[in-house]
């Protein structure tokens, strides 16, 4: 199973995923916009444009924080993996919500002037040399541009067009966007805020996002994939009996690539650990219906030749291997993607 250039591949789980996400966004905005004005006991209400801008801005910040938390959570506990599955839709939705925030601001604070709105956004405050009164809007605008670029390139077409490594690197810009949003809020609304809820929520959330990343990084380093050890020209991965049926062991090769050695029907096969889709870790997946299944989005490959079954065309490299004194040895030179290698008896 893999993708062709189909506009969007839908299935029931994506509908459920998107449904829950949209329900969350709708709940946030509805409560913020329609319930809280009744609760606030101000003599005169906050202008609705500002009230709405705040609702959409805060919602976008929360969404972005959740999106970024999913990655490390899935590393720390595989039960969170399904949240990765359709994370791109979450990201696209965040770009929409953030755009609405910017729209309300632009059509209020930057309207009513003889200066055109966009010029006003750039020119009205140029106090870049000072933190107090810094043009924090520019930081928001920068983040929004990144979110829009990522949303526009989120489709699998771009993934193929740019290739998975380039695409992944591009999408790491999400971290730059987040840092920029954190600065946008810190230098903006936080400078004025009297009540404590927003500052506390904001600091705790941003801190949690950072903490989860550090934690997942440390956990991964501790339990990270072992380095294969040299046995002449071949690399030793593990003992053959350490591999469970339908599962794999992963090892890091000298060239920095990872190999996954699977056991299927009692025989061993070695393939590249990197999924052709988004570099997902195939060795953390399983063999389902005789096919290696990626844990991230479920692309499938035959374990003997690294090819996706027809009609799909994805191919990943395979490795030659042999078993010697119960140890699994892999030839570190990868075969071209799609090369058949006979599975090896454990003996």
């Amino acid at each position: 199973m893999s993708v062709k250039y189909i506009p969007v591949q839908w299935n029931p789980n994506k509908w459920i995923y998107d449904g829950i996400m949209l329900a969350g966004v709708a709940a946030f905005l509805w409560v913020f916009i329609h319930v809280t004005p009744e609760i606030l006991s101000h003599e005169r209400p906050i202008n609705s444009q500002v009230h709405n801008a705040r609702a959409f801005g805060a919602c976008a910040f929360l969404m972005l924080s959740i999106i970024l938390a999913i990655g490390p959570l899935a590393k720390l506990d595989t039960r969170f993996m399904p949240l990765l599955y359709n994370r791109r839709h979450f990201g696209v939705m965040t770009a929409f919500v953030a755009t609405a925030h910017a729209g309300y601001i632009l059509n209020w604070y930057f309207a009513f002037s003889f200066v055109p709105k966009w010029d006003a956004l750039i020119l009205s405050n140029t106090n870049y040399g000072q933190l107090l009164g810094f043009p924090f809007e520019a930081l928001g605008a920068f983040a929004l541009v990144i979110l829009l670029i990522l949303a526009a390139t989120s489709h699998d077409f771009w993934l193929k067009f740019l290739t998975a490594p380039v695409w992944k690197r591009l999408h790491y810009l999400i971290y730059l966007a987040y840092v920029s949003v954190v600065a946008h809020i810190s230098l903006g609304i936080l400078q004025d805020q009297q009540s404590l809820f927003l500052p506390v929520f904001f600091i705790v959330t941003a801190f949690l996002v950072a903490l989860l990343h550090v934690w997942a990084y440390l956990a991964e380093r501790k339990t990270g994939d072992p380095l294969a050890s040299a046995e002449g020209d071949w690399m030793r991965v593990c003992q053959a009996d350490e591999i469970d049926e339908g599962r794999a062991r992963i090892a890091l090769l000298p060239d920095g690539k990872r190999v996954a050695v699977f056991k299927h029907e009692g025989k061993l096969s070695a393939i590249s650990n990197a999924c052709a889709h988004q570099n997902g870790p195939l060795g953390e997946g399983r063999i389902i219906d005789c096919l290696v299944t990626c844990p991230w989005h479920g692309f499938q490959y035959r374990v003997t030749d690294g090819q996706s079954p027809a009609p799909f065309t994805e191919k990943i490299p395979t490795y030659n291997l042999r078993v010697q004194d119960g140890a699994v040895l892999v030839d570190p030179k990868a075969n071209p993607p799609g090369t058949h290698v006979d599975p090896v008896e454990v003996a």
Partner: protein
Amino acid sequence: MADNKDKPFFVGYLTAPDGLRSFLIGIGIGLILLMAGVGLGIGATQDDPGNGAFRGDYGRQTVTGVMELTPYPVVRVTQGSEHVPEGHTLMLSAGGKQSLMSRVRDLDGQLVTVSGTILDRGELDMMQVRGGQNGISRAEGDAPEMDSEDLGRWRIAGEICDGKCLAGAMRPGTGIAHKACANLCLIGDIPPVFVSTQPVEGSEFLLVVGPDGTIFPKSAYDLVAAYISVEGKVVRHGDLLVFHLEPDTAELVQ
């Protein structure tokens, strides 16, 4: 990675295994509740934007008085209306973020009639003047002599705002988050107002002009919305104080 051998395995296009399904349902419900809760928390704890407002409820106000260009136009009211007392000094603006400057250039010291909508916030008020002749016209009769009193140099602490948003054109209309908006008003020659933390001769709000009685100087834009202390001459025009702010003397107050 860690030993996930016995954890259920999810494949996106298949139905989730049982144990995982209840976990995911929990996460889904938790997510919706979290988002609603955060929306409630942030929304319901927003700061009070103050009680400034457009007083549409007053109806249109029309007053007569002597035009003074400070250089921002103010009217020393000689004949008041229901909500604008005689003797009051009334600041003026046009619609949106636009000033009246081009329409009053030749009217300094003249008796005029102005008509429009009042914005007010406690002691501070301003008139948004209607367009054309209906908004501003020369009045019959001679303009009485109006005096102003030099109150000497002061150092005062507080915040520079645009007088119109502060008076109620926007809620909130002050603060750092609103700074770019305030700057844009000042670029449009809306009268700047200094909100002093300590009343100066009984006034909390002072109209701000440049050091030599010019419009708000470019070099002072970076001071807008920050909490500062700054020096300058204070001049009383009726019940309005005009602060000749000297940007070079400004200090940020933490």
